[in-house]
């Protein structure tokens, strides 16, 4: 049996249940969002690591002239080395059923199915039982347009080909999803591609567990390279991926941390809105509090009563929020896993995540409500009594009301609603803040989508070519150009030879930080024709290359990110095709969404085994009609391959501009959907909070609504008064969202730019702003629905007889 004071508080809560329910809903929604993001952060962080580490990833991969089991056994005994295994990777193409081709990377693995380093797990079907079989990475089936049981035609340089049957799929979590890179990943035995290349060229090495830092691994790798050289083999390159990190780990975790931060802000907003509602609630209890104090209650006793009420609401909200958040997290993690090609062993969310979410969801509203509860509890009896009743002019018009009096509006009812909105400016400010913060996120996420699409389009615009043909070996640039130029549909052919480049650490062995897919972490150097018509990069600093310059390079945007601190005028010690070269940075060019590239002249790229007249890559621009037809583009690619191979020039692979664009578009998908989730939650919190505060304001002016009914206002008139008041919060919030979106957009652009390695500039756009304005209008109308319907239903007698606070 509750004592009288607790019964009073329960009855107060029942009387104000509409507002308190809205407040509870706002807290529950924001709490659920925080739980979702925190759980997702913890689970994805764990699963990314678990998936990647389950493959026992190589600490380093050394590219050799020849690798074998004997060498591996010798290196496995090297100090600091835990294990070593030979392997290889061969680039080729897969012919598609529709006549097109896709680039393909084949991992050649002795004892496929029993490897110890960079392991893959059989997903479906079987391991290859004979040399005419292969397995594909599960995400590559879609890219190859194949199913288990199909036979694929694999094409290699020098007209080599193989027809292998797909007998199974594997899961290789160390790779980005194939659809993201538009590359087919296959796994074969050495015998399957023996005719293409009989030797293995990679030695995979893992270090002992005690060695964890990248520089320590590099030291071991250099030692291994030296030992290999002593054994008579030649080391071309050392690849050391970031230790123990999935290729996308830092990007995903950075983005999730950003979203977690935004969710925390959403909960904070919900708590502050709740505090505003509690403040209004305390105001409505002023008379009762005065009576309680007059008969002996202390401020602390009163404060405890109402804080416990707030705590109860927060607890109920948390009870709803945490399970919902965990459920949403399970869905979110599942969707992210599909996007990242992960296997989630179980969405086991640690108990401390749920506990932390619940604790924050309960603590934040209680803390925020502490001040209004205390202030309401500390009022003296006299102060509290004097606030009772509309007759006593307890509200003095302020400057804003007097200013608004001079504004002529369409109707008196509209004027009433607008001016009422400004009577409680702190509350109006909170409503504006709610709509502004949600709107800023909305606008920023829309701008992100636009900016990324613009980047993809701008990147495409700088790529004024339709195909890039990579050759297996160096060939005469003139010969290649001549062969390709004569093909139907071809407009322009230019020689764009390319080589991997690494910073020379002193032992002339190229060291890169790329992953096994040879995509992430690479820097290349290209010779570009000075009179090129196929590159649209803009010079940001310094100058472009000059004729016959042998040691000048221009960095593109991604190269500048990959080589932090390097600026115009600096010199770089590089290894180009394993030859040491000193180059000078003469310019920086803006190139959007392009891999890290240093541009140089043909003379600059020439070396011991590669002349200025040679090329290993050409770029082809097609005639407009051909370029617009995907099938025609594929036909040209096939024709170019046939023509070159027939001339004895091996083709390593062909990449079309359309494939590049498709891969670029896919990279941002997860972030945009996550931002959309946060925006939706913040908007919902804002709408609920606004509706609740509006309801509080309407209750405070109960008697005024009674007067309106007395002088003839119908239900529709009452609704219009409340609606015009609601619209003020919504419209001001929409306006405030615009300047607030600027720093948020900048932050998101900076973060996304950093994780994607591409500068991203988010600019204010009209469509998102107008869209948000529409959302605010609709949300305001929705928020006004409950309080306006309630006010219109009040009995006139009760509203005139009861106390009312202004």
């Amino acid at each position: 049996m509750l004592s009288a004071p607790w019964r009073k508080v329960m009855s107060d809560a029942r009387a104000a249940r509409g507002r308190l329910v809205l407040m509870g809903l706002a807290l529950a929604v924001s709490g659920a969002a925080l739980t979702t993001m925190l759980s997702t952060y913890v689970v994805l962080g764990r699963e990314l690591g678990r998936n990647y580490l389950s493959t026992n990833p190589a600490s380093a991969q050394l590219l050799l002239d020849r690798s074998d089991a004997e060498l591996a056994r010798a290196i496995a005994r090297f100090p600091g080395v835990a294990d070593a295994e030979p392997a290889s990777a061969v680039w080729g193409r897969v012919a598609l059923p529709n006549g097109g081709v896709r680039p393909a990377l084949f991992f050649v693995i002795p004892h496929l199915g029993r490897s110890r380093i960079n392991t893959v797990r059989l997903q479906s079907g079987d391991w290859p039982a004979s040399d005419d079989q292969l397995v594909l990475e599960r995400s590559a089936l879609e890219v190859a347009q194949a199913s288990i049981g199909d036979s694929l035609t694999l094409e290699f340089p020098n007209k080599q080909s193989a027809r292998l049957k797909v007998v199974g799929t594997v899961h290789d979590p160390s790779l980005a999803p194939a659809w993201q890179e538009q590359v087919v990943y296959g796994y074969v035995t050495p015998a399957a591609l023996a005719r293409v290349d009989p030797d293995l060229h990679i030695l995979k090495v893992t270090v002992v567990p005690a060695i964890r830092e990248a520089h320590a691994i590099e030291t071991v790798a250099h030692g291994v390279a030296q030992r290999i050289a002593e054994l008579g083999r030649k080391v071309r390159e050392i690849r050391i991926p970031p230790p123990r990190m999935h290729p996308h780990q830092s990007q995903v975790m950075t983005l999730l941390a950003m979203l977690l931060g935004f969710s925390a802000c959403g909960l904070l907003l919900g708590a502050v809105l709740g505090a505003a509602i509690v403040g209004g609630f305390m105001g409505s209890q002023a008379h009762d509090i005065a009576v309680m104090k007059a008969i002996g209650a202390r401020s602390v006793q009163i404060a405890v009563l109402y804080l416990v009420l707030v705590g109860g609401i927060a607890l109920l909200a948390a009870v709803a929020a945490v399970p919902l958040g965990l459920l949403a997290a399970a869905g979110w993690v599942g969707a992210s896993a599909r996007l990242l090609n992960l296997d989630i062993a179980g969405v086991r969310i640690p108990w401390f995540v749920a506990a932390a979410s619940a604790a924050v969801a309960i603590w934040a509203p209680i803390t925020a409500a502490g001040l209004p509860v205390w202030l309401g509890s500390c009022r003296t009896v006299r102060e509290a009594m004097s606030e009772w009743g509309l007759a006593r002019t307890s509200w003095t018009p302020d400057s804003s009301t007097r200013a608004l009096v001079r504004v002529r509006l369409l109707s008196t009812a509209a004027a009433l609603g607008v001016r009422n909105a400004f009577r409680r400016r702190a509350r109006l400010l909170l409503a504006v803040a709610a709509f502004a913060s949600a709107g800023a996120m909305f606008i920023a996420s829309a701008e992100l989508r636009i900016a990324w699409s613009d980047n993809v389009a701008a990147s495409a615009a700088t790529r004024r070519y339709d195909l890039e043909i990579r050759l297996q070996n160096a060939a005469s640039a003139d010969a290649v150009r001549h062969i390709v130029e004569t093909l139907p549909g071809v407009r322009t052919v230019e020689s764009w030879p390319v080589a991997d480049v690494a910073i020379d650490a002193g032992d002339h062995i190229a060291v890169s930080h790329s992953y096994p897919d040879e995509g992430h972490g690479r820097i290349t150097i290209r010779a570009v024709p000075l009179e090129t018509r196929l590159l649209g990069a803009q010079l940001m600093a310094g100058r472009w290359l000059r004729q016959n310059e042998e040691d000048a390079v221009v960095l593109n945007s991604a190269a500048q990110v990959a080589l932090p601190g390097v600026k115009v005028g600096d010199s770089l010690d590089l290894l180009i095709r394993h030859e040491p070269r000193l180059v000078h940075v003469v310019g920086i060019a803006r190139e959007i969404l392009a891999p890290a590239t240093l541009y140089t002249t043909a003379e600059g790229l020439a070396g011991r085994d590669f002349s200025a007249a040679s090329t290993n890559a050409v770029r082809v621009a097609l005639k407009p009609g051909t370029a617009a037809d995907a099938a025609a583009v594929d036909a040209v690619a096939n024709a170019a391959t046939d023509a070159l191979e027939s001339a004895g020039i091996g083709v390593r692979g062909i990449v079309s501009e359309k494939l590049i664009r498709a891969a670029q578009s896919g990279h941002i998908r997860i972030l945009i959907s996550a931002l959309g989730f946060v925006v939706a939650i913040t908007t919902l919190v804002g709408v609920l909070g606004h509706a609740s505060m509006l309801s509080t304001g309407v209750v405070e002016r109960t008697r005024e609504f009674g007067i309106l009914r007395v002088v003839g206002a119908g239900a529709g008139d009452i609704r219009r008064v409340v609606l015009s008041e609601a619209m003020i919060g919504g419209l001001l919030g929409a306006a405030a969202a615009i300047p607030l979106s600027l720093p948020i957009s900048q932050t998101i652009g900076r973060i996304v730019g950093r994780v994607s390695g591409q500068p991203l500039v988010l600019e204010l756009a009209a469509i998102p702003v107008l869209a948000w304005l529409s959302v605010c209008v609709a949300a305001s109308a929705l928020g006004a629905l409950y309080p306006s319907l309630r006010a219109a239903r009040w009995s006139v007698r009760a509203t005139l007889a009861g106390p009312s606070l202004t």
Partner: protein
Amino acid sequence: MADIRQGSLIDLRGVCKTFDVPSGSITALGNIDLQIRLGERVAIVGRSGSGKTTLVNMLTGIDSPSQGVIEVAGAHLHGMSQEQLAVWRGRSVGIVFQFFHLLPTLTVAENVVLPMDFARHGRPTQRLRRAHELLEQLGIAEQAGKLPADLSGGQQQRAAIARALANDPPLIVADEPTGNLDSTTSDQVMTLLAALAHQGKTVVAVTHERDLGRFFDRIISLRDGRIESDSRRASAIA
């Protein structure tokens, strides 16, 4: 009785009002029969709890009877919905309260325009003009653009009277109109109300101040929810 009813603006027959409370029910009005003619000036007096406000709430449609029939200005109030009552009230009754009840965020003129807006009375420009005319009649034209908080009590009550007259209703009801005013101002306000009868309006005022009875033609005294006495004065202050 039929003759009396024929000229009646207000006709209450067998009106009862009970309120349910946890301890049982309270009869606020018991079997009231009352007719008031056009142009009468009627004071309803009685002690606190006698049912004065409840009776006035019946006349104005603010509350509905538990039993009985209420006809005011040609409308059967007992059968009307809240929505219908609000519309009827705006057009047929002007109410003046003890605490004025002007809306604090509207100017004096806007408070007067408000009932005309709700009743769609005339065009918007005409409404504002009428508001100014009414304020002029009541001697507070210069206060038109001010907010109620800037006015004295007497000025606010005049503004409230102007609001009550906005839609030119046949009936003016005042609930303790001078309860918050000093004696001099009270006399001024009561004089204004009394003068409305000469404009053909029926004025019903609730008051506990018996010395204001000189402003009225008829004084109805309530006690415990029933009419204790109903007397007409030979001469009232015109």
